[in-house]
């Protein structure tokens, strides 16, 4: 087999492992219980090691997914037969797992498509239990549902393995001491918990979309996972709230610009300079479709407004023909609900398009406590550049340069500084 072919196989296997290990962990955690999540993770780890040994030299089975499920299932059955383990299983399906009549039957059923989805949903809800911090929720989702290694999660959060390891350890201890189960929250708590899940998926998506992480692949994977899990939510009648559709629409619009927002050297291309031919039409149309469904409810969530803003951009023929008035209106609404400084800055940039860049500058200057923020400084620099006041813009870009460690951002600001001369 040629080397390039070998690489193809490795890439495919990597992707398969990442994708399937999340599903297998979800199913096996459903079987063994949330507090025995390590047992599930160990089985999946063993299964993958076994696969790596058996699939050496690119000799893949006909149906690699089925191979993985069968191996994981058989390992789980062996373990479930141990008396010591049986005592630990206390969930609603325990009698079926403890009986030889039904053990094999039930385990087969657990690995069917519907049950896998149900397990993933339960896992999502359990990971977002109110007693787990937002940071830990996202880490736990990445580890359990998205099949990322501790190292990759550390990478994604631009922190080290040890920090993530500790965070996950503490979270798992909490699951045990608080007896957090995989049961769906009751009808009265369902909506609140869905909000928490959406918030975690939003963070997960942004981690991939905005992070200054040098590895493009990891970023796209994070976004893809966030979207996959959001789709799971919208497909289930229990959780297909309008705001879930709104978030999914927002993700689609953002993801549609993936190819256009970085140039071939990996440097950032700003919205006004992006080649709109490169925008993914399919994702934009999916975004429109989901946004439509999001409007079926009575209540409006921040995600609705953010998705509407993204929609106005995505559906504009070009930068100058963007419906800036509408976008400004949407930002005003958003600001009346949240005092997020980044939203404030973004609103000022839109204001620049509607009422002129002087106005944008004067409002930007009124945002307090943000002068040490890179984005704040580049925004002011940009507004001055639009007014062709290079000497005014320059100090802002110079300051911004000291406020970021991201290579892509540094390069962008350097280019802006060059233009100032």
């Amino acid at each position, binding site marked *: 087999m040629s080397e390039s072919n070998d690489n193809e196989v490795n890439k495919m296997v990597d992707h398969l492992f990442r994708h399937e290990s999340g599903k297998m962990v979800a199913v096996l955690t459903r079987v063994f219980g949330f507090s025995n999540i390590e047992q599930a993770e160990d089985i999946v780890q063993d299964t993958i090691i076994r696969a790596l040994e058996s699939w050496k030299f690119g000799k893949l089975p006909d149906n690699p997914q089925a191979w993985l499920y069968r191996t994981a299932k058989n390992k789980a059955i062996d373990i479930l037969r141990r008396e010591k383990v049986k005592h630990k299983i206390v969930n609603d399906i325990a009698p*079926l797992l403890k009986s030889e009549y039904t053990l094999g*039957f039930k385990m087969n059923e657990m690995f069917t498509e519907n049950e896998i989805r149900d397990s993933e949903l339960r896992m999502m809800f359990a990971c977002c239990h109110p007693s787990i911090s937002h940071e830990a929720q996202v880490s736990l989702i990445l580890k359990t549902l998205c099949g990322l290694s501790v190292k990759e999660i550390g990478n994604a959060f631009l922190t080290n393995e040890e920090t993530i390891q500790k965070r996950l350890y503490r979270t798992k201890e909490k699951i045990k001491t608080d007896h957090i189960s995989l049961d769906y929250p009751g009808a009265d708590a369902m909506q609140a918990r869905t909000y928490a899940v959406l918030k975690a998926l939003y963070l997960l998506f942004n981690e991939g979309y905005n992070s200054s992480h040098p590895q493009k692949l990891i970023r796209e994977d994070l976004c893809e996972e966030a979207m996959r899990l959001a789709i799971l939510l919208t497909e289930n009648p229990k959780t297909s709230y309008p705001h879930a559709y709104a978030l999914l629409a927002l993700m689609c619009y953002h993801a549609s610009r993936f190819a256009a927002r970085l140039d071939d050297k990996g440097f950032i291309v700003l919205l006004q300079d992006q080649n709109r031919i490169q925008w993914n039409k399919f994702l934009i149309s999916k975004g429109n479709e989901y946004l439509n469904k999001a409007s079926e409810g009575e209540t409006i969530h921040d995600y609705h407004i953010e998705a509407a803003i993204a929609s106005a951009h995505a559906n504009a023929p070009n930068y100058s023909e963007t419906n800036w008035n509408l976008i400004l209106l949407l930002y005003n609404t958003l600001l009346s609900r949240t005092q997020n400084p980044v939203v404030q800055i973004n609103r000022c940039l839109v204001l620049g398009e509607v009422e002129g860049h002087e106005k944008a500058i004067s409002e930007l200057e009124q945002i307090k406590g943000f002068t040490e923020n890179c984005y704040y400084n580049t925004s002011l620099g940009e507004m001055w550049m639009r007014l062709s006041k290079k000497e005014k813009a320059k100090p802002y870009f110079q300051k911004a340069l000291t406020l970021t460690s991201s290579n892509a951002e540094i390069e962008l600001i350097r280019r802006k500084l060059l233009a100032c001369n």
Partner: protein
Amino acid sequence: MEKFMYLFRGGENHAHNAQDSEAAQKNMQAWGAWMGDLAKKGIMVGADPLQPTGKVVSGTKKIVTDGPFVEAKEMVGGYLIVNANNIDEAVEFSKGCPIFAENGKVEVRPLQKMEM
């Protein structure tokens, strides 16, 4: 709530008789579905199938023989313990058992509480 034991007797496709055939597969699915339903309703406590024979230990001399050898239609092929309010309810729950379709029967026996 009381506990009752179902003793499954006979059954042409019951666990130990089951061959690796399509019919046997289908049969196991029927059992799985029935017990799955009982478990979901909190009725099922525990169950296991039995192999057809083992050893019989008997008498003060504890003589060990192979066996038991009983008629196939009387052979206990497995058991299931259920929660029920009374024996009538336990009997009612047993009626969904797939064993009736394969010439078997269910013996419903209340678990005895020992007076101390």
